[in-house]
């Protein structure tokens, strides 16, 4: 265990390495217990506010971890460094906004509101653990925590027919994917004799059977590919996103994916860092397939949620383009893209949850005709998120794509960048069609009274996201520095890092 060496040099209490996760878990337990104490049929809003405060505390704890020397704890199972902090901030931010959006969403519709907050907090614990794990068994357990909580959240609108259907579909295919991932871990153990990222890296460099390593990576890629909905493992995505409640879709299309991409980065650039020839061709193919199938699929959709589901497949493809770049740049580009994508996608689904109402009666493209006149502010925010999803300058989406494609071109994958750019052109069509519906078409006579009115917490959540989209697009410096510092922790693949994360951040300035 290289951990023993580490802790003798710098002594950081192991619990500090897990501080954000511990805060999240404790808040989750507290919310769960208070839910049982509160009288039935009273408002559960205080629990939501408690959950929000807990998430803020976890975000603070992540920032505090920047001041710790990077290193592992608990016998080399978790590592806190700039990379894990970056993903903790992304996941924490997504959870914070989702809680703000859904503070009033379920009120009066279901009697499981308290459990909703607790499940989100526990799920976030799992996702954060995924980002900080450097041990594949730990990754597996935290992946399960994150997945099981999202399966349940997907089925939260129990009275509708589509929501439980989404939940069961997600559950069946998700368990299937987990089995692939676990088989991959087992094969990896067979090839290198360890499930620790650093020990696997030593094994990969030291002549473990390339055939077994390739099959192991393929299995893990299939498992994670299902979770992040890469084509051809994407078939569940449109059905699940259509059926699940919109705020939950915002969460589950971004946070678990960010965590899964963090794991994929640790496996590809960390464990398999010296064997890029094994994974790069596979990643290349999946990137092209996801971008193309996602965008072509989105073109034919009439339902806005299904359209955004296909768009999320395409975005997973863009993100994968970053993996074909060389080590520090590819990691930084992929990390930054997860943050940019999270800001715009959570926002888009937040607006859908507002415009379509709890029962999601208005999710067809035609329902958005003239929405700009009825809800000018919401439509304007939606426009910002869609423009960012297209990738127009001064938005997060533009800078994310720019950075990803530059990284790919710099590493000699110009063709992949060309495919990506062509795809962005196709994608612009369906985003613009939705924008056109909202702004160009006359208002349709409302078929049912439109009772939506924005609550302060919802407005705050959306404001945070609009701000994030512009800040990441115009002043990306700070986020980019953290992403680069995170990428720098991968430099030496066989030894866990030990220099303070904040120092890495300052040297980059």
């Amino acid at each position: 265990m290289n951990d023993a060496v580490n802790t003798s040099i710098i002594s950081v209490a192991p619990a500090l390495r897990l501080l954000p996760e511990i805060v999240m878990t404790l808040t989750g337990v507290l919310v769960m217990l208070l839910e049982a104490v509160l009288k039935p049929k009273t408002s559960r809003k205080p629990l939501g506010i408690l959950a929000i405060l807990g998430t803020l505390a976890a975000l603070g704890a992540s920032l505090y971890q920047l001041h710790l020397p990077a290193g592992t704890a608990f016998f080399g199972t978790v590592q806190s460094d700039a990379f894990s902090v970056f993903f903790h901030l992304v996941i924490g931010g997504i959870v914070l906004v989702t809680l703000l959006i859904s503070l009033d969403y379920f009120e009066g519709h279901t009697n499981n509101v308290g459990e909703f907050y607790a499940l989100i907090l526990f799920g976030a614990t799992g996702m954060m653990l995924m980002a900080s794990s450097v041990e594949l068994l730990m990754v597996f357990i935290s992946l399960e925590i994150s997945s099981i909580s999202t399966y349940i959240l997907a089925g939260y609108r129990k009275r509708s027919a589509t929501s439980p259907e989404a939940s069961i579909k997600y559950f069946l295919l998700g368990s299937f994917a987990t089995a692939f991932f676990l088989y991959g871990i087992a094969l990896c153990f067979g090839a290198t004799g360890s499930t620790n990222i650093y020990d696997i890296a030593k094994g990969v460099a030291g002549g473990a059977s390339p055939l077994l390593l390739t099959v192991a990576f393929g299995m893990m890629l299939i498992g994670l590919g299902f979770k992040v909905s890469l084509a051809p493992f994407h078939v569940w995505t449109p059905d699940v996103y259509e059926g699940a409640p919109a705020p939950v879709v915002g969460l589950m299309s971004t946070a678990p994916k960010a965590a899964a991409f963090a794991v994929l980065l640790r496996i590809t650039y960390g464990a398999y860092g010296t064997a890029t020839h094994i994974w790069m061709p596979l990643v290349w193919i999946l990137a092209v397939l996801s971008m193309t199938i996602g965008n072509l699929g989105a073109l034919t959709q009439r339902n806005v949620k299904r359209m955004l589901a296909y768009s999320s497949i395409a975005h997973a493809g863009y993100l994968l383009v970053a993996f074909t770049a060389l080590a520090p740049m590819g990691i930084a580009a992929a990390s930054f893209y997860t943050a940019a994508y999270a800001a715009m996608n959570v926002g888009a689904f937040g607006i859908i949850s507002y415009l379509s109402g709890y029962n999601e009666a208005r999710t067809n493209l035609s329902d958005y005709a003239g929405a700009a006149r009825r809800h000018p502010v919401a439509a304007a925010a939606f426009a910002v998120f869609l423009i960012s999803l297209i990738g127009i300058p001064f938005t997060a989406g533009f800078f994310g794509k720019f950075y990803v494609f530059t990284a790919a071109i710099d590493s000699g994958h110009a063709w992949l960048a060309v495919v990506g750019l062509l795809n962005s052109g196709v994608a612009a069509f369906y985003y613009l069609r939705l924008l056109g519906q909202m702004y160009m078409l006359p208002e349709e006579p409302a078929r049912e009274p439109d009772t939506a009115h924005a609550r302060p917490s919802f407005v705050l959540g959306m404001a945070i996201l609009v701000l994030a989209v512009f800040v990441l697009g115009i002043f990306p410096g700070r986020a980019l520095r953290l992403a680069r510092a995170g990428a720098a922790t991968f430099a030496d693949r066989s030894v866990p890092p030990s220099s303070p994360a904040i120092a890495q951040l300052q040297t980059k300035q």
Partner: protein
Amino acid sequence: MNLAIFILFGLLCLGGALNLLLQRHPINSALSLIVVMSSLSVLYLLLGAEFLAAAQIIVYSGAIMVLFVFVIMLLNAGEEERTHGSQVAYLAGIPGALALFTVLASTFFTLRNSFGNARLGAFVATTSDLSRVLFRNLLLPFEVTSVLILVAIMGAVVLARKEH
């Protein structure tokens, strides 16, 4: 001798798994699952993992299967209705499964010479070895499993509770 035992219980395991899928009554499927679990434990023994084999029998064939059977009895689950299945399942699923099987089989076949033999007690096998791994090296995953179970319990409560 080892090979004979392996082939016997390997076939038994496969047969049980297939029977599990083909049976129409849940209770028959549950009973075939017991066959699968028990023959797996024999395979574990062949790999030299006697503790795992015992745990497999006690936990899976014993405790978990009793729970399965109880639930089936309590729900009074009847025979399944058969549908023709989806086209996608036949067009993509079967070739996909076959391709996967071929890849794995050819991998193990190519590498068969570099795999060694296993003897009883050759690996982490005794209870003290296992507990050292479980409560020291892998303490954190072990502890975090409690969150996993908590999430699962809460999910079951949420999904099963009636809305009013």
